[in-house]
């Protein structure tokens, strides 16, 4: 059995070796700190919602350029507000940026009616997608999705009128 003095001597002698070993390996890093944390499902859904608004904005921009007589600018302005509000809710995870690109660039309808129908279908799709995200969202984010979906549902109604009424969108109004 080693005496206390022998033990101290062994410890003192092995200290440089221990230090050099630690210098090579570095301190042990917990697995959770080895890379950016995975993006949560809620954030992924939010990033998709941002992209979808960008796609709608792109489509409206093309439709307005092709058919400037259609009074679509108020609807486009509301989509820009949706995008701003949704983007503001994103807390960018490390290594991930709020998407800044449009992912769908379909050709715009070759007639006014086709373009309106295309916008209408896109709005309707957007409503359905937003509603499908309610369950996985926090209460306040679910409310934002529901409000944006309700706004886009009113766009569908407006576009319904636009598709039928050659005078524009005013027939959607009761005033």
């Amino acid at each position, binding site marked *: 059995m080693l005496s206390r003095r022998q033990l101290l001597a062994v410890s003192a002698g092995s200290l440089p070796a221990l230090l050099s070993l630690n210098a090579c390996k570095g301190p042990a890093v917990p697995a959770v700190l080895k890379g950016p944390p995975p993006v949560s499902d809620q954030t992924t859904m939010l990033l998709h919602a941002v992209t979808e608004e960008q796609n709608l904005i792109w489509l409206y921009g093309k439709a307005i350029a092709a058919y400037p007589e259609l009074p679509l600018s*108020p*609807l486009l*302005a*509301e989509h820009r*507000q*949706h995008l701003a*509000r949704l983007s503001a809710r994103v807390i960018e995870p490390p290594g991930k940026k709020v998407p800044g690109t449009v992912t769908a660039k379909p050709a715009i309808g070759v007639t006014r009616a086709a373009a309106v129908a295309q916008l209408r279908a896109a709005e309707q799709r957007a409503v359905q997608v937003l*509603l499908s995200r*309610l*369950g996985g969202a926090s*209460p*306040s984010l*679910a*409310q*934002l*999705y*529901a*409000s*944006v*979906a*309700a*706004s886009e*549902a*009113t*766009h569908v*109604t*407006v576009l319904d009128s636009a598709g039928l009424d050659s005078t524009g969108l005013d027939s*959607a*109004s*009761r*005033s």
Partner: protein
Amino acid sequence: MTPAESDITALQGALAAEHAAVYGYGVAGAMLSGADRTAAHADWIAHQKARDSLEGMLTRLGATPVAASAAYQLPFAVTDLAEARALAVLLEEGVTQAYLAVVAVRDKTLRSFGALAMQPPANRAAAWRGRTIAFPGMPAS
């Protein structure tokens, strides 16, 4: 499963808003004529149906549905066409806001119900207002 108290509270809020809308359209309709009056009548019926539906839901959940008040304090006097339309907008916005509160509950089925139920009043509000808005049901920022 026993519903959460917050689920019942949110549904009662929606029901109270529907009661108010049923009353309010009675006032607004008296000042309207022609197509506006026809539209107001259709909207009044829609609110009655929504009210009945909510009462049924609450009863099935074991709650006692809130009753309508005998009378409501209107936010402003309704003496002409413009004021009647403005009241209709306000009623629809109130109902939309009440359903948005349902979207914040934990129950996923109720969330979907609230979100879908927001759409008709948001559409009616847009029709009476003459324009759409970006965030139906949300407080103006």
